[in-house]
């Protein structure tokens, strides 16, 4: 579904991503790992459109998307969850999830303002769908709670819920386990596997090796912006170059 083709990203004199190529296939959970500063987050941002590549291509479902703006890529089905909390803290849990429905709904100022039936129907359908999604991540009980007061594990799950509400077929997760305790990490793992069950692919940047090994179908290892290994978890784990990169030469 996702093809990263010879992507290069330079920041002035610094080459953050160096001719990286790989694919994420249908129904695959791929983990992008590597030491800090290896270019993983930069690569995710190139994929979702917050950064544009210096050279190279991103293809999604066969389409070249390198020139598309972030919100258009989301409409295509690319959902993102970032490391630093990007919740709308003042809004409720349900409202946060419903924001994900925006790109696939069409009530406009006139139909909303005049409360036309087409709008109320759409609103109800959105609500129901989001409550459904919230129950997948286990947050349906807290639907009317203000998002800002949730503990971090639940905030992360809410962000995933919001991305799911956009009907994402590819989920980009940037260190979703950061700051979570082991119970929350287990819950997170289950949710990610559940996402795959529902037909979406996942590209996961993560440092927690236990989680990575547990749920990933394959790994891509980055070091100084270059791919140094790729393959199923077991083979990558024993790869000499990978070990050297993490432990230092």
């Amino acid at each position, binding site marked *: 579904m996702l093809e990263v083709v010879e992507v290069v990203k330079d920041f002035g004199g610094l080459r953050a991503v160096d001719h990286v190529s790989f694919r994420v296939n249908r129904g695959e959970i791929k983990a992008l790992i590597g030491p800090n500063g290896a270019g993983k987050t930069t690569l995710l941002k190139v994929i979702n459109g917050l950064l544009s590549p210096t050279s190279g291509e991103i293809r999604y479902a066969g389409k070249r998307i390198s020139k598309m703006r972030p919100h258009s890529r*989301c409409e295509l089905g690319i959902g993102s969850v970032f490391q630093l909390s990007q919740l*709308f803290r003042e809004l409720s849990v349900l409202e946060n999830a419903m*924001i994900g429905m*925006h790109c696939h709904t069409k009530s406009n*100022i006139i139909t909303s303002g005049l409360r036309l039936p087409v709008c109320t129907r759409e609103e109800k359908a959105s609500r129901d769908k989001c409550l459904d999604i919230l129950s997948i991540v286990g947050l349906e009980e807290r639907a009317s709670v203000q998002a800002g007061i949730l503990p971090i594990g639940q905030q992360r799950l809410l962000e995933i819920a919001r991305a799911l509400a956009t009907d994402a077929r590819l989920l980009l997760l940037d260190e979703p386990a950061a700051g979570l305790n082991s119970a929350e990490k287990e819950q997170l793992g289950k949710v990610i596997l559940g996402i795959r069950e529902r037909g979406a692919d996942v590209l996961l940047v993560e440092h927690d090796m236990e989680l990575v090994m547990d749920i990933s179908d394959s790994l891509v290892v980055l070091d100084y912006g270059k791919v140094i290994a790729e393959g199923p978890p077991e083979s990558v784990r024993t790869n000499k170059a990978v070990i050297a990169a993490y432990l230092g030469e």
Partner: protein
Amino acid sequence: MSTLASIARPRRLILYAILALWLAFPLLTDKTYYIGLAITLGIFAIVAIGYNLVAGNTGMFSFGHAAFMGMGAYTSAVLSMKLGMSAWIALPLSAIVAGLAGYLVGLTSVRLGHLHLAMATVAFNIIFHNIVVNWTFTGGEAGLGPLSRPALGSLVLNTDRKYFYLVWFLVLALLLFTRNVVSGRIGRAMAAAKGDEIAAQVSGINVITVKLNAFALSAFYAGIAGSLLGYYLAYVGPKPFGTDFSILLFLMVLVGGFGSAWGSLFGAALMTFLPEFFRFLSSLAFIPYNVRLVFSDYTYNLLLFGVAMYVVVVYLPKGIMGISWRNLRLGKSKR
């Protein structure tokens, strides 16, 4: 932040009772001074509720909205006086023109950060003011007039009382409309654009479009208000549409609470009635003369105003609607 729905039942009924009284009072009094004040309040409320959409809900602090009000007023004046158009057609047309102007100004401003957006909108306000003052077509300093009151066949809105009902019908209609927009898909998109633009973008929201529409919609409201003012005064001039009114608008919405349409109404009420309150205080005989002077002298009035604003900004940053009404012991809360 409280919304009307979160205020418990007994208190909401009180609010509705006050609203009913308010709507009935022009029938109970002949004092056109007060009815006139209420009309002015209604007009300010309309532009404030619109401004709240762009500043409170979408987080864009424009300081040029008086110009959109002016656009509505002048367009109505030109359409009615030079083309003989009926007010009922001229008013919505002027609002649309104002809305378009809002969209165009938005095109230049929405990508800017807070400070630069403020500067750009002030600049627009100044440009608008300069044009209408120096252009003979818009009557220069003297303005355009006289404008005849709107008439539906033989029903002419020639008394303040009748005009009051026109204005307040629009205020309530626009309040409901706003409430519906804010609680739905568009309102959520505005809140997202305000809260975290990047998160909104990766969640599929075209932030630029949302912001442009907010600008256009708020300018539309301002256009309605401007036209209403023009037909009320039977005259349109440059004076009310300068940057000082734009700043007053900001204060109205600040006092009421950013993001709350009802709050903007209360904020407008406060700003309209504060000078009246001062005037009242200056007439009370039991207050020592020197103190009364403070309330009656215009310069001192301004000072008091400034102090009052400062107090609000420091102690009530979320405005009136930000006060946790639920914590006031006035009856059992719903939650």
